[in-house]
């Protein structure tokens, strides 16, 4: 298809040659990113460019949610309020007891001259974006390095552990979900105190790995973070055991778990920012 002003046969490179050139460039991008981590600047650039766009485009969803909330039935609100008041009273009891225990614990720690546990701050963040990925499950939050987030911090919601920050940009950050394939979480079985390793299995599932066949574990047991990794604080609920099966070929039990946090639907989460604690082994 000769256009005016162009020679009919001098057409430059054909599509196949151009495809090969672009494939080479693409492969070099992959290598640069995977081997040398050289493209983090490009990532931050995209993040700075797209951040305002995403903030703006979140508005339609928020407006729909607001409208839905506006038309909630009055009766329903009253019922919910009563339930919340009752729950609050119950929680206050627990808080009082916890404060008492905390005081006692602090005194005992000074008596024993143990180092105080590192303090903890909480940063609220909201879901900004969710992407497709074949190999891991990630969500993007609207808080970033500007509010003191670092890569590696745990992210929780009201029900339990959501995941771990894997990349932090100036104004946003990416969370790798606990159910993401390859994401490991050291856990402890709440009922028995047995330690284990929960690995994400994709499709919103976790798997408790390397449990010997005679382990006492039942459907319904809760798994909490064990805290031995110094990444997650101890005692955050992670998952509930949904199926235990024995296989003939493996010395370990096959334990499937369902994460407790609302990985798919929680719109606002908390990031636990622990003070940096430098320990030398």
């Amino acid at each position, binding site marked *: 298809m000769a256009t005016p002003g162009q020679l009919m046969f001098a057409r430059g490179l054909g599509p196949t040659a151009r495809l090969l050139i672009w494939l080479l460039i693409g492969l070099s991008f*992959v290598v640069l990113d995977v081997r040398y981590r050289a493209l983090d600047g490009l990532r931050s650039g995209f993040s700075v460019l797209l951040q305002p766009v995403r903030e703006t485009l979140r508005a339609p969803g928020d407006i729909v949610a607001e409208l839905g909330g506006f038309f909630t039935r009055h009766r329903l609100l009253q019922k919910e309020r009563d339930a919340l008041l009752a729950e609050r009273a119950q929680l206050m009891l627990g808080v009082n007891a916890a404060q008492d225990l905390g005081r006692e614990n602090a005194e005992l720690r000074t008596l024993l001259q143990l180092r105080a546990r590192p303090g903890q701050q909480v940063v609220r963040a909201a*879901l900004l974006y969710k992407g497709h990925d074949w190999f891991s499950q990630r969500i993007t939050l609207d808080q970033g390095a500007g509010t003191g987030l670092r890569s590696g911090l745990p992210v929780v919601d009201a029900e339990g552990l959501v995941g771990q920050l894997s990349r932090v940009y100036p104004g946003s950050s990416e969370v790798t979900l606990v159910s993401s394939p390859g994401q490991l979480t050291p856990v402890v079985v709440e009922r028995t105190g047995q330690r284990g390793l929960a690995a994400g299995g994709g499709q919103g599932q976790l798997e408790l790995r390397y449990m010997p066949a005679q382990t006492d574990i039942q459907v319904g047991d809760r798994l909490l973070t064990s805290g031995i990794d110094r990444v997650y604080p101890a005692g955050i609920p992670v998952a509930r055991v949904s199926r235990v099966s024995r296989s003939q070929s493996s010395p370990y039990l096959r334990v499937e778990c369902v994460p407790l946090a609302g990985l798919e*639907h929680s719109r606002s989460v908390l990031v636990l920012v622990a003070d940096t604690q430098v320990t030398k082994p």
Partner: protein
Amino acid sequence: MSPADQNHGSWRRILGTLFLAVLLEQMPWTGWGLALRPDFVLVGVLFWSLHQPARIGFTTAFLLGLLADFQDGVVFGQHAIGYVVGVYLLLFLRLRLLQFDPLRQAAQLFPILLTVQLTVLLVGWLAVNPPADLAVLLPVISGTVLWYLVAGFQRLWHGKGMQDRA
């Protein structure tokens, strides 16, 4: 394509639709919406490289692929390579596609889109779990040598080769 199509007004239309596609992908899709969401940017790039191949082609596809890599938080290059392969396949089938009605065009686009997704999957898999060594590729070389031997043997046996008989 008439020269009237190529006035400078259509640049604005091309960039406008691609920008709109990027915006649509930035919305916070979740659940079934996310699962069913078409790759608006890819469809836009393929559409314009079908109708305006002099303007939209490999370069645009590659750059928008990098953007897609960022927004999914994956290794840079996965979607870029996938989109470039998609544009190549589309250019390969271009003259045929332009003669089809929309239904047949869509049917022809299905394998192209599938190939793009599979390319993204393959590149991502190679990037996340790189193979331990490249010895799996050695049969390719030995197979080529074997082909040479077989073809040479056949030529020796039957005289000058099969194509001379026709």
